């Protein structure tokens, strides 16, 4: 069973996510499509949990399903309280899923919630109208709860291969399938005429694929007072319903979409189609010869570890290719060189193809936010709309997996500090509803993610005062700083501008953590704000983490790789240009004064020999800049980043390592870490050069 556990976990995440999305959509606008989707997700989840033997999850999803069914039939309205209840159930299921092996610990919570769900079902209560019957239920002797998925499967089972084929073709054309339920008045006469009129009306809007009871039975009046029809086409549902309701003697009309897909795992469930005609494929016209409903899969689930290993191997291949190419050049054999050139092209393409495997859409993270924003805004009692765009933008999986926390923080911050009360907004002449925009878009080899709110913005003066009080800047510095510079101070620890400390944010550590987390992903973050009108946080991430462009520099015996992202420019500096201010060396670059270090000293591996000119790499991380002197610049190269073993991975200033063409390991510098850490090392070393 354990081998299926991962799959179960992965699929459960998807279903839970689906349910949450549907719920939030439904809360805004109760539409059948989302109801159906949510129902399906809950049902699939139930099925899977049942198969795996997770009884508590099965129970909970069952209650959800039942309640959903009532919603679907319009017996209850979806009130906020009810949405909350569903969300609570989603959370609890998540908890159960996270603790698969300690299910029993949660039994009390599950039973409490089940009761609540049950209570809602009763609120909905009312007598069971005959209208709630479905073919499925009839066929199974009304033992089971009526539910959409099972109803759909029942339809599925009733279809002959030919009918399925017709349906499939229709679906390909973009047409949809609906169940039309008709109930005639008690004691209605001329039932077959009514049925005929219904059929006539339906035929204008689409094709009737199946009827239950059969069309013949309808014609012969051998039915009670209800019947079901399966309609395919593109009907105008509202208009159709009106027409049908206009037919004399018709008491109730229900039109609901039906999802017929044979390949879904749910359809494997044993639904005993008792009394259904069985068709043997041999009797069918030519069309039916291929196995009905066989759809080619477009995606395959692969373990991420396997993907990583593939990416790694291709990285190896690329490194090795360089070596082979060098050998080929030495051999001076034209045929060999041509073959190698060909190989180079293919491997480059292979590398590109493999890199795309690591890419996932940011949707995976963004989809969590609507729920979070909803909960927080309810809690804070501030009305807010979250507008998300660019969900499909793809980024390296590692980045997508890890950018969640900083984004959560930024969104919470926006809700907590940025948003305004309704009166405040109206007074300012703004829309009463706060809006938060979350956008993702490509920009060259980067993906830019912005979190923007139209709230009260950040007041640079307030920050300046706070920074002064906390002695983070001197009075003189404060005078010299422009508003944009002042804003960047919020990323330093110890500064919070919120008037109150809440449980969400405002402890003054948040933003510095956000910045660190983003920089750990090779990203950058900036803030812009218009006081009174809102703030915008701009996050930039590289498309991929696995391969980066670096500048190779020689430093003593070692070669280091500096990510090009972190390099502003290279220059040569004469020893006399190096000045000392407050015991720290600096150089002047145009108008700026930059701290100046010998890379070798930063790493505590001796001092550089005195040279006529020092090659200097001007690096920057956030708003920090520095000049790093090295022995020689060796040129740019793309490298595959490999992490260092966890026995040594706490090294500040080292982002990872890579293997060069000659097989040697080269360290990749982490400029942000290096610039932050520099004092620690410099303090120890003598600074006379």
């Amino acid at each position, binding site marked *: 069973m354990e081998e299926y556990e991962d799959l179960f976990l992965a699929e459960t995440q998807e279903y839970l996510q689906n349910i949450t999305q549907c719920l939030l959509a439904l809360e805004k606008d109760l539409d059948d499509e989302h109801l159906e989707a949510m129902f399906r997700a809950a049902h699939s989840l139930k099925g899977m949990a049942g198969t795996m033997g997770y009884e508590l999850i099965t129970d909970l999803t069952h209650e959800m399903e039942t309640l959903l069914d009532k919603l679907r039939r319009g017996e209850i309205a979806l009130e906020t309280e009810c949405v909350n209840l569903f969300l609570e159930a989603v959370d609890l299921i998540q908890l159960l899923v996270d603790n698969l092996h300690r299910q029993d610990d949660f039994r009390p919570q599950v039973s409490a919630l089940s009761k609540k769900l049950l209570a809602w079902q009763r609120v909905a209560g009312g007598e069971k109208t005959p209208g709630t019957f479905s073919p499925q239920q009839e066929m199974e002797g009304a033992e089971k709860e009526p539910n959409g998925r099972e109803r759909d499967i029942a339809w599925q089972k009733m279809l002959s291969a030919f009918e399925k084929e017709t349906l499939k073709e229709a679906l390909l054309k973009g047409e949809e399938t609906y169940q039309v339920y008709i109930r005639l008045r008690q004691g209605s006469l001329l039932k077959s005429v009514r049925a005929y009129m219904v059929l006539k009306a339906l035929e204008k809007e689409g094709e009737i694929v199946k009827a239950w009871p059969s069309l013949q039975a309808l014609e012969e009046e051998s039915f009670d007072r209800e019947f079901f029809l399966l309609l395919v086409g593109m009907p105008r549902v509202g208009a159709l319903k009106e027409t049908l309701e206009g037919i004399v003697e018709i008491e109730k009309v229900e039109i609901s979409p039906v999802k017929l897909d044979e390949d879904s795992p749910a359809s494997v469930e044993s639904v005993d189609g008792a009394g259904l005609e069985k068709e043997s494929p041999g009797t069918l016209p030519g069309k039916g010869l291929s196995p009905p409903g066989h759809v080619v899969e477009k995606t395959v689930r692969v373990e991420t570890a396997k993907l990583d290993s593939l990416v*790694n191997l291709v*990285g*190896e291949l690329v*490194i090795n290719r360089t070596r082979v190419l060098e050998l080929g050049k030495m051999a001076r054999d034209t045929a060999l060189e041509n073959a190698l050139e060909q190989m180079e092209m293919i491997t480059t393409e292979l590398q590109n193809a493999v890199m795309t495997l690591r890419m996932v859409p940011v949707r995976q993270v963004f989809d969590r936010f609507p729920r979070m924003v909803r909960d927080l805004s309810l809690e804070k009692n501030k009305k807010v709309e979250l507008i998300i765009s660019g969900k499909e933008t793809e980024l390296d999986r590692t980045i997508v997996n890890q950018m969640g926390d900083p984004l959560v923080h930024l969104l919470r911050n926006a809700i907590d500090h940025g948003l305004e009360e309704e009166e405040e907004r109206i007074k300012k002449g703004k829309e009463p509803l706060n809006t938060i925009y979350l956008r993702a878009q490509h920009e060259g080899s980067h993906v830019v993610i912005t979190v923007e709110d139209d709230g009260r913005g950040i007041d640079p003066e307030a920050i300046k005062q706070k920074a002064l009080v906390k002695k983070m800047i001197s009075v003189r510095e404060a005078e010299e700083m422009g508003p944009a510079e002042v804003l960047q101070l919020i990323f330093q620890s110890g500064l919070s501008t919120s008037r109150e400390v809440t449980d969400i944010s405002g402890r003054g550590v948040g933003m510095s953590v956000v910045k660190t987390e983003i920089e750990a992903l090779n990203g950058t973050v900036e803030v812009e704000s218009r006081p009174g009108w809102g703030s915008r946080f701009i996050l930039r991430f590289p498309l991929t983490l696995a391969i980066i462009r670096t500048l190779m520099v020689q430093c003593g*015996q*070692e070669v280091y790789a500096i990510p090009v992202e972190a390099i502003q420019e290279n220059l040569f500096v004469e020893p006399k240009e190096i000045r000392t201010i407050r015991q720290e060396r600096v150089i002047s670059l145009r108008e700026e004064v930059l701290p100046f270090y010998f890379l070798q000293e*930063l*790493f*505590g*591996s001796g001092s550089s020999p005195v040279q006529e000119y020092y090659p200097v790499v001007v690096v920057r991380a956030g708003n920090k800049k520095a000049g790093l002197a090295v022995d020689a610049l060796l040129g740019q190269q793309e490298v595959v980043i*490999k*992490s*260092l*073993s*966890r*026995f*040594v991975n*706490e*090294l*500040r*200033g*080292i982002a990872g*390592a890579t*293997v060069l063409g000659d*097989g*040697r*390991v*080269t*360290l990749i510098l982490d400029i942000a870490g290096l610039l932050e850490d520099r004092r620690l*090392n410099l303090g120890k070393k003598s600074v006379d050069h």
Partner: protein
Amino acid sequence: MKQDQEAAAEVQLVTFRLEQEEFALDINQVREVLRMAPVTLLPQSAHFIEGVINLRGEIIPVIDLRKRFELPPKERDEQTRIIIVEIEEQKVGLIVDLVTEVLRLPSEAIKPPPERVVNVQNDLIRGIGKIEKRLLIILNLTKILDAEEKIALREVIPGVE
């Protein structure tokens, strides 16, 4: 079948030399033995971490066991070897003077470590193996690589940079 039973009562060890002492590692923890390879220095790491090497594309930290045990340094030569060990799914290289042999030792020939053996911290030792006149110091790998142990060692032995 017979081998299995024997294996239960026996330990297979890879033995190596540092200075004049003979050490041993459980063969189950040893992945391979390499000749000395070019090592890339790791700045700011623990003093006994020599650096990292490239083992078929994998980047593996290498520990100088002499430094780990506070033994005087020695020129690397033809006999210097890197023993690649794996614990907790992490590979680590250990630089040793010389790898001597692979041998089987009955479990009862392994005694618990005495209070203090040579210059090696006590908890780094799993036991002492005896064959005829030879004494094998069987190492406790986890302790050698333990990040906290690194600090402990620094605290215990003064003058460590």
